[in-house]
């Protein structure tokens, strides 16, 4: 399977990263070489193998249901590029 310029365009849209034409050329070359490399896995028959998402054998534990008051609104908002009182400001979404 190879990745062409249209695929790059589609992935960059999904990943929300704009790419220039120059970047597209480089990405086409690099992504194809990475995909070719990872396709070695096709040599293996894995029909009867279960996929694992993690090696942790830890069962999820319950935390105590208790209220912890953390009021860091102002501190957290200090990291926002744009804010207004207690809100993050983003470009207009609905006309």
């Amino acid at each position: 399977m190879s990745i062409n310029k249209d695929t790059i365009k589609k992935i960059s849209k999904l990943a929300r990263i704009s790419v220039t034409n120059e970047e597209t050329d480089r990405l086409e070359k690099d992504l194809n070489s990475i995909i070719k490399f990872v396709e070695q896995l096709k040599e293996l028959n894995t029909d009867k193998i279960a996929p694992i998402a993690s090696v942790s054998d830890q069962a999820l534990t319950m935390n105590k249901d208790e209220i912890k008051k953390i009021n860091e609104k102002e501190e957290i908002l200090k990291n926002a590029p744009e804010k207004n009182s207690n809100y993050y400001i983003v470009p207009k979404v609905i006309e």
Partner: protein
Amino acid sequence: MTDLTKLTLVESVKHVKEKKCSAEELVDAYVKRIEKSDKLNCFNTKDLENAVSKAKKIDTNKKLDKALVGAPIAVKDLFCTKGLKTTASSKILSNFIPTYESTVTEKLWNEDAILIGKLNSDEFAMGSSNETSSFGNVLNPYRLNNENLVPGGSSGGCASAVAADLTSATVGTDTGGSIRQPAAFTGIVGLKPTYGRCSRWGIVAFASSLDQAGPMTKDVKDAALMLDVISGYDEKDSTSANKPKSSFLNSIKSNIKGLKVGVPKEYRVDNMPKEVDDLWQEGIKILKDNGAIIKDISLPHTKYALPTYYIIAPAEASSNLARYDGVRYGFRAEGKDLTEMYENTRSKGFGAEVKRRIMIGTYVLSSGYYDAYYLKAQKVRNLIKVDFDNAYKDVDVILTPTTPTPAFKFGENTDDPIAMYLNDIFTVTANLAGLPAISLPIKYNKDGLPLALQLFGKSFDEQTLLNTAYSIEQQVNFKSQVKDWWM
């Protein structure tokens, strides 16, 4: 007078405890060295003045009994530090100030260690040479005929800082080899603990099922002491393990008589330099001399580890890095609407390698490709884990080289991502299988560059790993040969 920066962490703490020096004198010694070492570019942020005042405060304590009392420690700039800029060496986080402290670093400060700064790394820990950092290359204190070399990556700033005596010890993170490979390149000890041994809470996430924090230190005992402090269950990380532990440092012993050591034939790769193969044989001989039993073993799916990693790690990264949206983390590039703002922010905020990995991750998770790539990789990951489960029926630890080559020059592997990825060929398996592994400096090659061996242990058996490493360390007596050429 002793140069305090030459002491190991264990010795430094002992000095302060026994009042052979004050915490302030210890911190001062490091501050002076750090101020003369900008050329190495180890630090993204220094916090020297605060460090001195914290040291003064510690000196007024009635009791100097904490495990890391007075030790000046800089940490990888991937650990969130409350009130101090945390960038992951990325432009997109270049002015992010966390409102909380990572669990691992909090444990350090609770033991009276003193934060002296944040260390450079590859951007979002993605790289093997520290060349993907948004804040410039880090230089290895070791050079080849006066030519600069990479420190390895991604914890390159950490590795150089320990090797150059700019921090008494440090914590890095290891997703595919990011503690062990730079440790090998700079002649220091690097330990990746078992997945779940240390809390991931407050560490900038790269690939959550692989990431693990661990010590990078001057010697094995220092690594044991650091692991004592930073490990443990944390309810804020649901994957952190609730296992009983005793002190790794107090239990350390060099007697390994009867220990069974596996040597996997699949790690003898094509084109392996003779010096690395010879090193491996030397390691086998040392262990034999120390009373260990050597066994040839097979880890049949080793060659598929790197391809598996380069599906799973980018997939998880593409998901983890979705949060950098130009709204919450300081950096924003404007756009005419919300989507364009996202696209411009992420295009200008991320560097080339990070974009490459997000794109690959997005591709392998996208509709129509998920089964062929991501699901397939998760199945092969299982096979790799089973390889180790089977091997550990016969052996206690496994010995391999840490890296296929010693440190290399800048730009040598930057044109071809695969060439760079091959650096992690011996280290990624530990992350995929969740196992602890340690890199240990052994000797210098004919050019004066450090060479290192790696030991893998059983899950949550860091003690055997540390004991084995300690036993080798006693034999090889590796000493730093860093000459302060940059001062």
